[in-house]
């Protein structure tokens, strides 16, 4: 679920509104998922000592 918003917004370069329309979810949900997706990626990287 968190992967797909990253794929849409980052790898495909879509805006929040475009991603929401494509995924069939509200724009606010796309935002919160990008928020949690990046937070969890940051945590994984922080555990590996890559970022603070």
């Amino acid at each position, binding site marked *: 679920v968190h*992967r*797909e918003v*990253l*794929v*849409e*917004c*980052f*790898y*495909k*370069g*879509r*805006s*929040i*509104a475009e*991603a929401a329309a*494509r995924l069939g979810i509200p724009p*606010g949900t*796309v*935002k*919160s*998922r*990008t*928020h*949690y*997706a*990046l*937070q*969890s*990626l*940051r945590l*994984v*990287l922080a555990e*590996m*000592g*890559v*970022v*603070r």
Partner: protein
Amino acid sequence: MKCDHAFDDGAYVLGALSPSERASFERHLAGCAACREAVASIAVLPGLLGRLSSLDADTVGSVTAEFATEQRIPRLVAAVTHARRKDRARLVVAVVVTAAVALFAGVTAGAGRVSDPPPSVLGTVSRPPSAPAMFPMVAQVETKATAELAFRETLAGTVITMHCAYPMLSEYHKAYLFRLFAIGADGQTEQVSSWMAGPGEEVTLTGTVRLTMDDLIRVELRNREDLVLLAYNLP
């Protein structure tokens, strides 16, 4: 960080906010330390994710190349990534690949699993692990296709290797004809290859043209109607 903009940080660093939302969020950032901190903590991630494409173009190539041309990453991220020391960045890249593999294992959007690349659908030659530098072709019209080229001069002429990706689209499923042409300094045009490809497919092919690297000025990827979709001008 309980504020109305608490979830905007991710979309902001991905460059996915609309211009008005971005302006509004940037005004908010000026007065909200929690959001500034949240943005700072994830600002480096798009830059690192973006580097995956140059390291492993076969697995995430088509979509990242498409993204790179849009350059939607905010200046903030560029500033942060540029500030990082190069040797550290290299280490970071190596580790972020591992982390992203863990996080993205099973990604389905036509990118395939990083650890288990899908077999090339129409590929005639698979790219060797130590592939020579590939040069991206530039879109001449609005197209979803992306391609990159490598050149090697031989006694017979120039060997052109092309890797082309066509992203998965929900709207179409048909395969289309594509042709690659090499154009010489005196205007002579040689067809390098032709192939059929549809959404979600990647093609790698190699052809030889008798033109030498010095004679070769331009490579064009054209569609069935001879419209130039992508082109690369040799330096």
